Each structure stands twice: as structure tokens, then as C-alpha cells.
């Protein structure tokens, strides 16, 4: 009665299509971060305390959150250098709304997401339908968004922001059982994005587009829709990040908010092993990249070194991380898409 055993090819076995969830780059990053944490704990006893780790985790959330969107965009072969300006526009609109009409927390977050998604939609539509290089368009919208944000600011800082967003901040209100809410939210978003990108057809489409847009189109993927979606997602997350930025700041908001943020985000993403040429990247790597960058920043400050020195190490880590990735690719002549 027993049916003859049929050997299925290895590739068709469920669970074997995708590579192991943690790639080489991520293992290297985890090791580097572990070494840094141990070294810093030995060098300055203050590092491994709650008063230092919690602010570190809170401080990395805006960059990591936008980094998740940026990972999707870079995986499709694009880039978004306008995210700093997007954060600025969202932050000032939220701050003005909170000062002017005292909107509640949920409305503030929704407002940020709405404004951010709208700006992302503009980027995505110009890039997908104008068929222009993403870097040029987003350099342009960087200036345009900055202009729009400054116009909303008027010529002054926004003062007297109510503590509506404190649940996302550094203080006691921002924690449950010692874990900061903003970090929890980041983990939830990252987990959803990780699953979506790795285990759903829609998520795999982004990788296909980055690998070869023409082949992706011929395979029936609506390339333009996916590309627009990536930029909308990035804008939306930038809107949430703007709420975190306000929550971490004081009761006033200056026009310099978000300035230069785009480079920190791109640094976190590329340190995480996402290929700038598209087709390869992972959300987990981006989280680790953001954690590494923030660890360096916090570490340099706590060691009593000049805080500007941290950028030197960030630059060095970019070279080392991307260099290690290049070496691995060279050893493996046909790079496979990973999560």
C-alpha cells in the first residue's frame, strides 16, 4: 500500500529556496558590535548601564526606521537623499499642529505619516514615470522640501511644543518595564518588513526589480508601482521618525532638524550589507548598521573624545563593511540574492 518514495529536487523542498536567515555580513556586524560593547564596558564602566543603553537604543530609532524604507528603495536600485528634508517638513507640520490645536498622539503620528507618504509619492512618481535617475530627482526634492519646510517654519523656531509625544521619548513615560516604546515599535516594523521582503511574492518583486528591471517587467511585475511604493514607504517611515525626533528633543524645534540625516541613514544601510547597485539587502543588516553607528557615537562621547571624531570611525566602518562585502562577492562569482 505504501506509495513509492519520490525524491524531490532540493530546490523544491520548502524552506530551501531562501538562504539562511542570517548572512555573512550580519554575522560580521554582530561580532563587531559585540566586541565594541565589551571593549566600551571595560573602558568606561558607565557604558553598560541602563542610563546609557536606553538612550542609545532610543537615539538609533529614527535612523533605523527610515533605514528600513531606504533598504527597500536601495534594493530596487534607487536611492532617496531627500529623507532629511522629509523629516524636517513632517516635524515642523506636526509641531505646529501640536502647538496650534493641541492634537493628540495618534493624530500627530497619522499627520506625520500622511505628510511623509505624500512627499514620498512625489519622489516615487517623478522617478518611476519621469524615468530619471533617483539620485538626481531626490537631490532636487531635497531642496524643494527644505524650502517648503522653511516656509512653514516662518523665520523662527517652533516654541512651546506640548509633551504629547513623550511616550516615544527618552524619559520614564517613554518606557515600559525599562524598554523604550520607540525601540519596540522599531522592532515591530522591522519584523513585519523582514517577513514581507523575505517571504511574500510582493516583497521578492523588489529584489527582482533591483536585479534586472527589464527581466522583472517581462516576468509580469508592475515595476513602476513597486518603485513608487518603495519611496512612499520611506516617506511614511520618515514621518514616524519625525515624531521620534520631536519626542527626543526639547519643547522647541529649530529649522536645522533633519539636516544631514540622509547620509547617516545611507551609511547605516550600506554598513548593513545592502548593495547600492540594487538586488541585494536586508532589514536585519540595516538595524545592525544603525546600532553600530549609534554605538560608535555614544562610545566616542563616553570615552571623553571630541564628538566630531565619531564621524571618522563611521567613515572607516563604511569602508571596512563594504570592503568585506566586496571581498565575499569576489570569492563567489555569481552573487545570489539574499534577504
Amino acid at each position: 500500500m505504501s506509495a513509492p518514495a519520490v525524491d524531490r529536487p532540493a530546490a523544491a523542498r520548502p524552506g530551501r529556496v531562501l538562504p539562511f536567515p542570517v548572512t555573512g555580513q550580519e554575522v560580521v556586524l554582530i561580532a563587531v558590535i559585540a566586541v565594541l560593547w565589551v571593549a566600551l564596558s571595560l573602558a568606561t564602566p558607565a557604558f553598560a548601564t541602563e542610563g546609557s543603553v536606553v538612550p542609545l537604543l532610543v537615539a538609533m530609532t529614527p535612523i533605523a526606521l527610515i533605514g528600513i524604507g531606504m533598504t527597500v528603495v536601495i534594493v530596487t536600485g534607487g536611492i532617496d537623499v531627500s529623507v532629511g528634508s522629509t523629516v524636517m517638513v513632517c516635524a515642523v507640520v506636526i509641531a505646529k499642529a501640536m502647538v496650534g490645536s493641541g492634537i493628540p498622539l495618534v493624530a500627530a503620528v497619522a499627520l506625520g505619516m500622511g505628510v511623509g507618504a505624500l512627499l514620498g509619492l512625489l519622489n516615487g512618481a517623478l522617478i518611476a514615470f519621469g524615468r530619471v535617475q533617483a539620485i538626481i530627482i531626490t537631490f532636487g526634492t531635497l531642496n524643494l522640501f527644505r524650502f517648503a519646510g522653511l516656509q512653514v517654519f516662518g523665520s523662527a523656531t517652533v516654541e512651546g511644543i506640548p509633551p504629547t509625544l513623550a511616550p516615544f521619548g527618552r524619559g520614564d513615560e517613554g518606557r515600559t518595564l525599562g524598554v523604550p516604546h520607540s525601540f519596540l515599535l522599531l522592532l515591530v516594523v522591522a519584523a513585519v518588513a523582514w517577513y514581507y521582503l523575505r517571504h511574500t511574492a510582493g516583497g521578492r518583486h523588489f529584489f527582482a526589480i533591483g536585479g534586472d528591471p527589464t527581466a522583472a517587467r517581462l516576468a509580469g511585475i508592475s515595476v513602476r508601482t513597486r518603485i513608487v511604493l518603495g519611496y512612499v514607504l520611506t516617506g511614511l517611515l520618515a514621518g514616524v521618525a519625525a515624531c521620534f525626533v520631536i519626542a527626543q528633543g526639547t519643547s522647541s524645534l529649530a529649522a536645522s532638524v533633519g539636516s544631514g540625516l540622509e547620509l547617516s541613514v545611507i551609511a547605516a544601510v550600506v554598513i548593513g550589507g545592502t548593495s547600492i547597485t540594487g538586488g541585494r539587502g536586508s532589514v536585519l543588516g540595516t538595524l545592525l548598521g544603525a546600532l553600530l553607528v549609534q554605538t560608535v557615537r555614544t562610545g566616542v562621547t563616553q570615552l571623553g573624545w571630541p564628538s566630531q571624531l565619531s564621524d571618522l570611525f563611521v567613515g572607516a566602518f563604511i569602508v571596512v563593511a563594504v570592503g568585506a562585502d566586496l571581498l565575499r562577492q569576489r570569492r563567489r562569482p555569481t552573487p545570489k540574492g539574499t534577504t
Partner: protein
Amino acid sequence: MTARALRLVLTQRTALLVVLLVAVVVTMTTLSGNNYLSAPYSASYMASTLINAVPLAMLALAELLVITSGRGGIDLSVGAIVSLTGMVFGFAYGQWGWPLAPAVLLALLLGAACGALNGFLVAHLGFPALIATLATYYAFRSLALVVNDQRPINSAPVQELYSTATAVTLPLVGDALPRVPLGIFTFLVPTALVVWFVLARTTAGRRLYAIGTNDVAARWSGIDVRRTRWSAYVAAGAISGLVAVVTVAQFASARPDAGTSGNGMALPAITIAILGGVAITGGVGRVAGVVLATLLVVWLNAGILLAVPGNDGTQFQLFALGVVLVVAALLNALTQRRYGGTQ
């Protein structure tokens, strides 16, 4: 006839830029004649604003070389090189008492060394240019801030340099033309001439266009692709070193954030290169386009400052820059599809 004119304006970037330049100048002069502006938009005002064109055009020429070298070529670190080299130049000239000529040479060489690091990462190790220059942007910017504890250097010799940044009356022509900032003649014109000569009249220039157009074909025709691409980054660094000297003279102070404060100097330089018809995909770009694009942006900005006084003026400059860049990019893409590219 109109179709041919349209084709000329769309395919010849210099033609389009000349049309836009004339439009801006005529509009502003008309507004000025009707007293809509807060100060007259006169020839001498236009000449005096050229001081802003010197660093902008030189860095755009640096981007021209790097972007033309192809394979995603771009240099985000030029502003950081300006900051770092400016500080070292400030030390040499302002504190160690070096004479001017060796100090300028030091700035040139240090800039070239920074560029050589970029070029090594990109051409020899195969880093994507965006990543390599993002990393060195961070590194150079950080060093520039740390090297003198974030303090500027403005000792007496550095302050006296300011006299070299003032306007001069042209010899021979005399007062017939307005006074033009000296930096135009001492730095911008020589740089532009050298870059033009190398690109248009030497085999090195032809090699650069060749590797930018097609890496593989260039290698098979016997060109040392790595060395050529590396040279482009070295040249961009050297030009940035010269811009550092210009910037120190202009501000009468070596500032640690001279090229990196705010949006930095790299973004406007890339913007102008793109506007000047340099194709981001490499292999296409001319000095004339970059120079015309600089004039367009500088004179447009100067007009906006008079038309929209106060803080709003600088904000509208951002708006104008963004619109110009987006429209130029869309136009490039359109031209590519209809006529097969700009020239």
C-alpha cells in the same frame, strides 16, 4: 523651423543654457527697471556676485571629471576636502609662516592626496563611488573639525588674504566694464582652461570619455581603465584643494566647516554639473555647459535675493535650485528618448 530650433535647444545643452541665461538676465533687468527689486540689478551687481561663482564652478568642474569617468562616478567628499585642506592651508600660511606659493601648493597636493584615496577605493578596490566618497566625506569632515578643536584660523596673514578676493578693474579695457572679482582670473579661468584643454585636446581626455562611455570596450582597446579613473578623482581632489584657498581668502578665515556646513558644497556642485549637461551615467559632459550652468544659477540666485528680501530670499534660492534640477533631469530623460541624448 520651430522643430529644428526646439531640437537644437533640447539636444545642445549649451544652447538651452544660453536661452535660459538671457531669459533670467532680461527678466531681472526689466524688473529692476520698473523698480520691483530692492536694489538695481545692474552690470556691476552681476559682476560682484561672480565671487560666488568661483568655488561653485570649480567644484562643478571637479564633479564633471568624476561623473564623466563613469560607472556611477560621483564625489560627495569635495566639500569635506575643502574644509580639511582649508584648515591645513590655514595652519601653513597663517601659523607656520609659510610663504603664499608653497602654502597654495601644499593645499593642491593635500587635496590631490584626498582625491587619490577616493580614486584608490573606487578604481582599484571597486567600491561604488557613492559609498566610497560618503565614507571619506565623513572622515575628512571629522578630521577638519577635530584638527583645531572646531576653532577657525584667522591670524593676520589669513585676514590679509581677503585683499586678493576683492574686485579689480580690468587692465586694457579699464572702466568700460564693471569691476570683476580677482578670484575669477587667478583661480576659475585657469582651472576651466586646463580642464577644457585636457578634456577636449589631449589623449587623456579622450581616454576619460572612453572609459565613461564603455568600460569594457575601453579596456579592450588598450586603455588602463583603473589608472584613468583614479586620475579623475585625483584631479577632482586637487581642484577642491584650490577651492579651499579661494574659500579661506573669501571669508578671511580658515573655517573647519567651510565646505560642509548646511547642505555642504558637494550638493550644489553636483546640481550644477547635472544642469550643465553632464550625464550621470558617464561619458558625456563639457566645460562650456558647466560654466554656463554656474552663471545661470549665480545670476538667478542674485536676482532672487533682490526680488525677495530677507530670509525668504535664501529660501527661494533653494526652491529655484530644486525646480531647475528636477526640470533639467526630466528634460535630459525626454531628450534621451526622443533624440538619443544631449551633446
